[in-house]
């Protein structure tokens, strides 16, 4: 790893250049980890090439399944001129000067479906700059003008010469990289947009060799599990570990310095879990949350039935309400969305070990390396450069691994601080810890009234939202809260791409009931459901076709309207909209989120009493230039499944401040038989690429609700099974 840690030259370059950092001139070399003697050379922070020609892309985004290990590698391979088989990848170390998310500013991290969006030009330039210095080196060696040389499939040729790139790496590393290398014209792309490019992370994930943070097995490591208060705001008063001492492998128990739990140290995971079971902890609940979900529900309903705290549209609600009162038809619905857990398949975990020079290494499926980096430096009182973050595969996240409190990494650090630091500490969460100790998609309520004129056009829209803000009171506040309004609460309602004359929107924050967090697609998880349910209900009331009704309200000429129209028409056409088989029903929804446009048609059979079966979902997505079409399809499939599964039957409920659900049996995941088929169509676009991790989720649940409403009741409170819908 010396290659990655001894690159001060790059740091200097990073300070001098803002966007793409392409500093050539430093050529640290070292033996490769695999024991090969090949010299490797960093051509820039994103590209490393060995003398044998093996190219390695340095991937700055963590891989939780959403595809950056393939996507960013594709960008380098495309512009450099090597095949996907000839390029490897490794995850970047924590260094926000080099590897920051350019959409986040000075922070290295992944989220908001920004990985491809913020890397597209940067990684292409890195690949192209590497190509240009290699060509220059060859030009010098052969005394042939660069213009006569080409680099293809890892081989430089021209004027009768031919040699693999490995031969020129050493020389290339002494040359100055061009600031603005020539990028390929999209017509020259061979890999970008190629549906045959395969995932780079498939091989280790099908034979058990992929290393997740849960798989850390360091010599002499201790496993720590934590007994946490069952109520938010509770603290440890005392504990008795006399029975825990009988568990073989138990080492010790100790209250965390912040009293947020008792750390149980053991020789292995099973002993730690057993000892925790045997531990008797008394919590101080005087300051703890005691509200139940029912209380929160009542508070939310009261909030949407009174004047909102924030007027988002800065207009006169009374005037719009008056116009709706006078409308030909009025549609009114009130919606409720429960708390939801992320429940990534890999329970949270990370491992901390000491280094010989007094520093620490964190092994983590690190979503936001900058956050634990700073937190650990503070906790251990170390300079930043003495803290290393090693990013491993993450077994899903859906938002959970990026918390403002850096929760699980801080727990591990506190557990480590309380030891003599001679043994690595691996913190493990159980599934029960995950479901009950979580950060949840906040509960929200919406109340909407829509007025229609005699021709079935919308003449007024009165929309009130209430819920707990995700960002307020956290370090993320500056990103999303403006004039008191947390945009994560209302994104998807305002601004709306629909042409709606006379729209009022208001928001009321409710006081925190639990810890809340972004959950795959954040505010869009509820706002898309409401917007698309109301558009549907309005279309039905107007006696118009739901697709035609939407198109009519997207008829303007903004880019959003055009692109939404594109995906809506495509999905409707591919789904055979209006031609469902006998006994089946279709529902549609279309929504923009994270810069991408997605329309989905859900086709169901059966009915709410005897069981609804999701037969087919047809999806159309416009995410700009599709870099890895098959990864995009996979993300749509996954996003749709995630949205539908939770809408069907999941919720987290509080009773007397405690979470009721414990594990998958009562927080039932989507299962293989729940969805018949998903078919995804990608719009061919030349716009810059945008996100795909989240945008598949928002339209899925409302499209299902609209299909159900086509032959039965309109479901306005989730989960659907609680609202009386049975699923086959």
């Amino acid at each position: 790893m010396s290659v990655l840690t001894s690159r001060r030259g790059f740091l200097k370059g990073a300070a001098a250049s803002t966007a793409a950092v392409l500093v050539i001139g430093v050529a640290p070399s070292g033996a490769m980890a695999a024991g090969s003697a090949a010299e490797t050379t960093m051509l820039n922070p994103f590209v490393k090439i060995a003398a044998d020609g093996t190219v390695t892309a340095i991937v700055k985004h963590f891989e939780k399944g959403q595809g950056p290990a393939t996507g960013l590698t594709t960008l380098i391979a495309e512009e450099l001129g090597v095949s996907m088989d000839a390029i490897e990848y490794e995850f970047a170390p924590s260094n926000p000067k080099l590897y920051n998310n350019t959409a986040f500013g000075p922070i290295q991290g992944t989220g908001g479906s920004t990985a491809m969006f913020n890397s597209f030009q940067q990684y292409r330039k890195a690949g192209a700059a590497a190509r240009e210095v290699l060509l220059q080196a060859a030009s010098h060696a052969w005394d042939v003008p660069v213009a006569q040389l080409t680099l293809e499939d890892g081989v430089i040729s021209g004027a009768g010469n031919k040699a693999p790139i490995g031969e020129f790496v050493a020389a290339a590393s002494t040359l100055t990289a061009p600031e603005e290398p020539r990028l390929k014209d999209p017509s020259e792309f061979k890999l970008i947009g190629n549906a045959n490019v395969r995932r780079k992370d498939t091989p280790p994930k099908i034979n058990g060799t992929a290393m997740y943070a849960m798989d850390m097995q360091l010599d002499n490591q201790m496993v720590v599990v934590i007994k946490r208060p069952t109520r938010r705001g509770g603290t440890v008063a005392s504990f008795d570990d006399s029975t825990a001492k009988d568990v073989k492998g138990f080492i010790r128990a100790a209250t965390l310095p912040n009293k947020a739990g008792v750390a149980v140290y053991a020789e292995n995971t099973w002993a730690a879990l057993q000892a925790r079971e045997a531990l008797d902890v008394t919590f101080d609940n005087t300051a703890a949350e005691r509200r139940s979900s029912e209380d929160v529900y009542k508070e939310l309903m009261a909030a949407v039935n009174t004047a909102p705290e924030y007027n988002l549209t800065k207009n006169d609600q009374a005037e719009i309400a008056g116009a709706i009162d006078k409308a030909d038809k009025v549609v009114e619905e009130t919606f409720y969305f429960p708390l939801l857990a992320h429940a990534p398949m890999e329970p949270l975990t990370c491992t901390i070990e000491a280094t010989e020079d007094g520093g620490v290494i964190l092994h983590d499926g690190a979503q936001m390396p900058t956050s634990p980096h700073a937190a650990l430096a503070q906790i251990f009182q170390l300079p930043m450069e003495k803290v290393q973050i090693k990013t491993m595969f993450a077994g899903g996240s859906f938002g959970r691994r990026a918390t403002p409190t850096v929760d699980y990494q801080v727990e591990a650090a506190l557990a480590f601080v309380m030891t003599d630091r001679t043994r690595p500490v691996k913190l493990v969460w159980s599934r029960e810890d995950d479901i009950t100790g979580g950060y949840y998609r906040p509960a929200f309520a919406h109340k909407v009234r829509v007025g229609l004129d005699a021709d079935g056009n919308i003449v007024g829209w009165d929309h009130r939202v209430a819920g707990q803000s995700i960002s307020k009171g956290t370090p993320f506040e500056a990103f999303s809260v403006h004039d008191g309004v947390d945009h994560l609460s209302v994104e998807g309602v305002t601004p709306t791409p629909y042409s709606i004359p006379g729209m009022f929107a208001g928001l009321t924050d409710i006081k925190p009931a639990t810890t809340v967090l972004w959950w795959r697609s954040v505010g869009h998880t509820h706002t898309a459901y409401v917007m698309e349910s109301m558009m549907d209900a309005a279309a039905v009331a107007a006696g118009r076709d739901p697709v035609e009704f939407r198109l009519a309200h997207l008829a303007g000429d903004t880019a959003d309207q055009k692109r939404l129209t594109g995906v809506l028409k495509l999905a409707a056409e591919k789904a055979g909209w209006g031609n469902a088989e006998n006994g089946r029903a279709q529902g549609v929804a279309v929504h923009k989120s994270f810069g991408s446009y997605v329309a989905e048609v859900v086709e169901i059979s059966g009915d709410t009493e005897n069981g609804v079966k999701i037969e087919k979902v047809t999806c159309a997505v416009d995410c700009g230039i599709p870099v890895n079409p098959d990864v995009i399809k996979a993300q749509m499939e996954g996003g749709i499944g995630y949205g539908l599964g939770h809408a069907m039957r999941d919720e987290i409920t509080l009773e007397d401040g405690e979470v009721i659900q414990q594990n998958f049996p009562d927080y039932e995941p989507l299962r293989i038989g729940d969805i018949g088929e998903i078919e995804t169509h990608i719009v061919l676009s030349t716009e810059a690429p945008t996100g795909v991790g989240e945008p598949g989720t928002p339209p899925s649940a409302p499209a299902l609700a609209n299909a159900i409403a086509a032959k039965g009741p309109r479901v306005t409170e989730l989960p659907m099974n609680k609202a009386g819908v049975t699923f086959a």
Partner: protein
Amino acid sequence: MAISLKLNGQTHSVEAEPGTPLLWVIRDELKLTGTKFGCGVASCGACTVHMDGEPVRSCQTFIEDVEDAEITTIEGLKSTPAQAVQQAWTELDVVQCGYCQSGQIMSAVGLLSENAKPTLEEIDDYMDGNACRCATYQRIRAAIVRASEIMEA
């Protein structure tokens, strides 16, 4: 107690208390980490291994019950159905985060070992206990069909 465990064709002697789930012996004692912990209550299938060729949830299989059995983990797969499954998984790029996939593959191999040509319904029934939070289900289904074709060829 000392237990002799036959795993992936080798016999290991391990020290474990009765009641210890096989999962933790495999992961923490034998350091074979391809078998995953997802729920601990037989509800997700991430920990699936083969016991005498049949898929079992290792989080709810106890060490004292496996003494005479042949255990196979993802690291020890090599049967014809296993090769077909891994090839199909590669062709279709089934994985996303990948954390559930060892278990999915162990179950899929179990299915194809007893039923080389399952219907879609049989696939859904058999694979029902293997959760995938990334919802890779439709590729799992397609890959099992594809593996069945590969086996036939």
